[in-house]
C-alpha cells in the first residue's frame, strides 16, 4: 500500500543494521581466527577491545565457539543473525519471500558452521547469503523508502563499526557520504544537525573516532 508503519520502519532499519553487523564481524572474526591458529592465540582480547564488547571468553577455543555461535551471548554473531532474522520474518510482505529466503539460508549455514571443523567455510556462505540479500533488496523492492531504510540501517551500522575499529579516514569518508545521500529518502526521522556534524568530523586531519561513534549513535530521532 506504499505506506510504512512506525514498527515496520523500525524493523527495516534494524534488519539493515544487523545484517551489516553480521557481515562485518564475520570478516573480522575470520581474520582473528586465522591469527589464532598459530600466530597469536590470545589475540581475541584485542578483538573485544576494538569492538567494545566485554571479554567474557575463557580461552581461544571458548572465544571461537562462543563469540561466533553462542545463543546466550548477546554479542555473538549468531545472536546478531537471529536478530536480523527476527526482523526479516516480520517483513515478508514488504521485502518478499525471495529476499527473506537469503536470511533464512544464512541462518541454516550458520547452524552448519557451528558444528563444522572448519567453520570459516560455512561462514563464507553466510556472508554470500547476506550479500545476495542486499543485492536482491536493491533489485526487487519497489518502494524506495523501504529500500532506503534498510540501506540507512546498514550504513549507520557500518560507520559505527568502522569508527570503533579506527579504520582509515578514506573508508569513513566514503561511508558518511553514502549515508548522506540516502538518509533523506528513508522512512525514518533523523537529526539533521548530527548529519552535518558528521560531515565536519570527517574533514578533520586526525579523526576523532570517539566522537564519530557518539554522533552516529544518536543520528535518529
Amino acid at each position, binding site marked *: *500500500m506504499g*505506506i510504512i508503519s*512506525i514498527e515496520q520502519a523500525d524493523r527495516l532499519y534494524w534488519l539493515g543494521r544487523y545484517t551489516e553487523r553480521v557481515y562485518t564481524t564475520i570478516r573480522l572474526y575470520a581474520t582473528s581466527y586465522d591469527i589464532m591458529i598459530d600466530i597469536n592465540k590470545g589475540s581475541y582480547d584485542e578483538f573485544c577491545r576494538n569492538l567494545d564488547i566485554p571479554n567474557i571468553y575463557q580461552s581461544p577455543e571458548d572465544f571461537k565457539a562462543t563469540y561466533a555461535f553462542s545463543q546466550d551471548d548477546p554479542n555473538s554473531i549468531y545472536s546478531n543473525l537471529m536478530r536480523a532474522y527476527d526482523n526479516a520474518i*516480520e517483513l515478508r*510482505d514488504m521485502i518478499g*519471500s525471495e529476499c527473506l529466503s537469503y536470511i533464512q539460508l544464512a541462518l*541454516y549455514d550458520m547452524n552448519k558452521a557451528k558444528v563444522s571443523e572448519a567453520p570459516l567455510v560455512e561462514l563464507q556462505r553466510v556472508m554470500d547469503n547476506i550479500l545476495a540479500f542486499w543485492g536482491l533488496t536493491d533489485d526487487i523492492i519497489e518502494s524506495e523508502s523501504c529500500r532506503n531504510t534498510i540501506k540507512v540501517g546498514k550504513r549507520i551500522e557500518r560507520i559505527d563499526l568502522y569508527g570503533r575499529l579506527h579504520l582509515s579516514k578514506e573508508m569513513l569518508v566514503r561511508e558518511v557520504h553514502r549515508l548522506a545521500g540516502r538518509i533523506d529518502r528513508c*522512512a525514518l526521522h533523523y537529526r539533521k544537525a548530527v548529519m552535518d556534524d558528521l560531515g565536519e568530523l570527517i574533514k578533520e586531519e586526525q579523526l576523532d573516532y570517539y566522537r564519530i561513534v557518539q554522533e552516529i549513535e544518536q543520528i535518529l530521532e
Partner: protein
Amino acid sequence: MYDMDLFEHTDTVNELLARYGVKFGIYKNNEFKEQLFPFDAIPRIIEKDEFSKLEKGLKQRVMALNLFLKDIYGEKKIIRDKVVPEEFIYASSGYLTQCEGVMPVKGIYSHISGIDLVQGKNKEWYILEDNLRVPSGASYPMIARELCRRSSPRTFQDYKLEDNRNYAELLRRTLDHVNVEGHTVILTPGRYNAAYFEHSYLAERTGAHLANGHELIVEDDKLYFIGVEGKKERVGAVYRRISDEYLDPMTFCEESVIGIPHIFDVYRKGNVALLNAVGNGIADDKGIYYFVPKMIKYYLGEDPILQNAPTYLPFYKEDMDYVLEHFDDLVLKDVAEAGGYGVVFGSSMTAAQKEDFIALLKKEPRRFIAQEVIDFMDLDIMEKGEIVPRKADLRAFVLMADEPLVWKSGLTRFSRNPDSFIVNSSQGGGFKDTWVLSQ
C-alpha cells in the same frame, strides 16, 4: 502408476520449503518453536468429474451455512420452525450475542471457508467438519506447487492439472468484493502464531498489508492504518487472522492486547468489512454440524450433495440409546474442542474410562456428538524410501466473492503415525499437494 521423477525430488522440494521458511509455530513446554511442515511428494489426485461434484456440493453447503448465520443473527426462522433446537444455539460458545442484528457488508458471513472431508474406502466423500472462522492451510499447497514445478518440470508437462497458484487471486477478489473503501489489511496476532507463515505469505501474494492490532486505530467511525509520518490511511477490509474473542477489547475479551478497540463498532456500522464475519463459530460448532444437511434442505430446498459422516446426537433420546448400544463402534467428540483434541474412540477405552465417559455423556448430552468410524481410504506416502498407506483428509477452500468460488486444490494432511486417525499438523502430521485434473 506413479511418476517417479517428482518423488525423486521430494528432498529438493522439502529443502526449498525450508528455504522459504514454510513453517508453523508450536509451543512445547512453554517455549516457542518453529517446525517445518513435512511435505510428501505423492499428490492426492482428484479426477475432473469427481471434483466438479465436490465443487457443487461444497458451494451448496457454504451457501446454506451463510444463510444459517444470517438467520441466526437475524430472523431466527430456523428456530421458530423447530429445525434446530434453540439450546444448540444459545448454549454454544460459538454464538455471540453481540452480533445480533449486525449485518456484515453484502450479507456475507463466511468469506473463506475450510471444509474438511475424508474419502471412504467406498470412494464416497464425507464432510468431517466445517471451519468458518479462520481456517488456515491454503498457503502450503500453493507454495508447494510452485516448488514442485521448479523441482520436476517434466511432471507438469505430462499431467494436465488445474493450477492452484491462483489462490491469491481468488482471495484478492474475495477481499475486494467487500472492501468498503480503503486499503486491505491482513491482521495477524504476530509471529508467534502457529500460522504466521501463512499470514505473511498471503499478504505478500495478495498485495495486502500485514498488520498487528496496534498499527490500526479507530477514529471518527472509521478504521485507519497509521503510517510512519503519522499519516492515517483508511482501511476498508480486514482479513483478520485473530479469533473473535480477541478482536476488540471493548466488546469481547477485555484483556486482549492484540485486538483493536472499537473495531466492532465500526464493523457494526458497515464502515469496514471483516473477513470472516464475527460470530461464525455458531455455524461450525460440532453440535450444529449434525444439522447442516437439514439446513441445506430448509434454506435451499435441495437435497445435500455431500454427506456428513453418520452422526448421532445424544441430545435426542433415540440417538442416545443408539450410542450406548453401539458405543464401541463410535468415535465421540466434545463439541467445545478443536484441533484433534477432545476426540475419543469408544473401542479404545478401558472399562473404567467407558463408565466415566457414559456418566458424563448422560449428564451433559449436548456436549458430545457420536460418529460412525469411517473406513478411510488411505493415501500412499513415502517413508524412508518406501511407499506406505496413511490416513489423510482434505481441507477444501470455498471463497465467497460475487459468487462462490471453490479453489481447485486443497490441503491434504496425513498422519505420520500408522495407527492414528488424527491428521492435524499441530499433532505432527504432514501435507501433500492436491491435484485436480483439468481433463
